[in-house]
């Protein structure tokens, strides 16, 4: 019996030592996983910088300011895709922002609780649809409709030299900057609406009720009390939407028309950074072509990073 006691005692010790070792191993594992995440992001930046270096080195600032994108003569200026990216994203934002505001205010303020939840879920479903599906829908459904019902009438009714004619000039096939922005707007709408809804829900009910108690209409409560209350957070939501729109690839690739150079009108075809990479990378003709595309990737990363960092800073300020 005494030997058994000694046995169990001597067994317990290594077990305890093992568990201490296990603790350290587990902790280290968790720590390494977190570090791996950071390394991955650092890897993205470094690999883009190294891969794109030949292009930056050769073209210098001209890479960003020139519009000459010609794989045959090995000249690469990315102003076209860069401007295309910024224009489509901002247009998308202009379309999506009022809608997102409307949806979230409607759900928080006006909608009966019972149907608010199904509607919120439905809008969130919109965010779950893969971007390639948006692209197909844009190409096969939206673009033909847009060409026959919007572009052709404008072409018919306005002189091509008039101001309106010039703003809306373009090949009437529905694949242009504007339809791309429209698709982007539908895609970023659910994200913006969801974050904005959360923001509105942080407004204390006392504040709202006080405003109602003073005899405000719903509009006045929203416009004069709730929106000022969420303040900076709104800008955060806008930046969040912008960040999404900047990097969106497949949907835009389907519908923007994919022509390099500056877009000259709202209904002109164009390209974005992401769509250019998606279209050309697998078939890049030379090392410099590849390098130029990777350099474009770095430009896109810098753009989205700046926008996201701003969004986060503003949203974090709101929550505190």
């Amino acid at each position: 019996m005494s030997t058994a006691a000694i046995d169990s005692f001597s067994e317990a010790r290594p077990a305890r030592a093992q568990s201490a070792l296990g603790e350290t191993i587990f902790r280290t594992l968790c720590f390494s996983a977190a570090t791996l995440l950071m390394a991955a992001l650092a890897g993205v930046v470094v690999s883009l910088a190294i891969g794109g270096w030949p292009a930056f080195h050769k073209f210098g600032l001209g890479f960003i300011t020139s519009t000459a994108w010609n794989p045959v003569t090995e000249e690469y200026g990315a102003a076209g895709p860069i401007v295309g990216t910024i224009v489509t994203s901002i247009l998308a934002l202009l379309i999506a922002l009022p809608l997102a505001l409307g949806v979230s205010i409607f759900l928080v303020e006006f909608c009966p609780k019972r149907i608010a939840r199904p509607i919120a879920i439905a809008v969130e479903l919109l965010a779950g649809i893969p971007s390639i599906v948006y692209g197909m829908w844009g190409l096969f459904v939206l673009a033909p409709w847009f060409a026959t019902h919007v572009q052709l009438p404008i072409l018919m009714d306005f002189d091509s030299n008039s101001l309106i004619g010039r703003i809306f000039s373009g090949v009437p096939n529905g694949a242009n900057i504007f339809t791309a922005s429209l698709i982007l707007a539908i895609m970023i709408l659910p994200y913006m609406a969801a974050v904005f809804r959360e923001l509105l829900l942080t407004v204390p009910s006392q504040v709202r009720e006080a405003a109602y108690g003073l005899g405000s209409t719903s509009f006045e409560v929203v416009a004069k009390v709730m929106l000022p209350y969420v303040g900076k957070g709104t800008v955060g939501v806008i930046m969040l939407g912008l960040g999404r729109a900047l990097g969106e690839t497949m949907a835009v690739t389907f519908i923007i028309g994919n022509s390099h150079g500056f877009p000259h009108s709202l209904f002109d075809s164009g390209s974005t950074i992401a769509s250019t990479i998606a279209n050309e990378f697998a078939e890049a003709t030379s090392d410099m072509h590849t390098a130029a595309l990777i350099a474009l990737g770095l430009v896109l990363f810098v753009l989205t990073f700046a926008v996201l960092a701003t969004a986060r800073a503003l949203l974090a300020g709101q929550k505190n």
Partner: protein
Amino acid sequence: MDRAFRRKLTNGVFVGACGLATIIALAALVLILWSLVKEGVGGIDGKIFTMTQPAPGSPGGLKNAITGSLMMCAAGMAIAVVVGILAGTWLAEYGGQTPYGHAVRFLNDVLLSAPSILIGLFVYEIMVAHLFGHFSGYAGALALALLAVPIVTRTTEDMLALQPNTLREAGMALGAGRGFVIRSIIWKAASAGLLTGGLLGFARISGETAPLLFTSLGNQFFSLDMAQPMASLPTTIFQFALSAYDDWRRLAWVGALLIAVAVLAVNTIGRLLARETHRP
């Protein structure tokens, strides 16, 4: 009187506009789903799952693409779940409040919203240009993993943070070490939430096209070899949709319908599970 009327009118217009915005958003959803169903349902038959992709004009299905997608997503998720859960655990239980923890969380957010095509470029540079020298299913899986990891990490951290501290204290009072408490109590209590993270990650990557374009490339034949270029549903849809052949386009619609249904289903299940976890 006049002023009261004007206020009422403004209010009415505002409420109407908000309602209209909601209707527009819902209409977009309905229109997209309707097109998918209208164009895609007719093409669904046994051939889709039993035959590989056809030459234009001959019958065929999407077997190679579906298999490739499943394999790469599964491999990607295997990596993402392990790394994501461990990293999320570290953030929630160990170092989340240290400066290093804040940095990890911030960079995780950046990774979460980094354009997916850039992840593709990164993996191309590493795996395709240098390590393997050619496109492969492994490269595709790694790109997908990188997209899913931040989602799993984020959800894991959120779900572990929901677990009450009394659980941890009870475990430690019994003499269990911290890691042991996390593994056998906290993870178990949060298991539905962890599953949610996995499902949301899966839903995100199964529809991703851009990062696969130049990592797994695509393959018109049926292949189970992940060291070789591999077909995937999204890249096949991309190729078929932009082709000039009607039967390829029909297949693209079927593929789009399949992917949308799968993604929305997984997404919904994930969200339902998350709601279960939130309930104390």
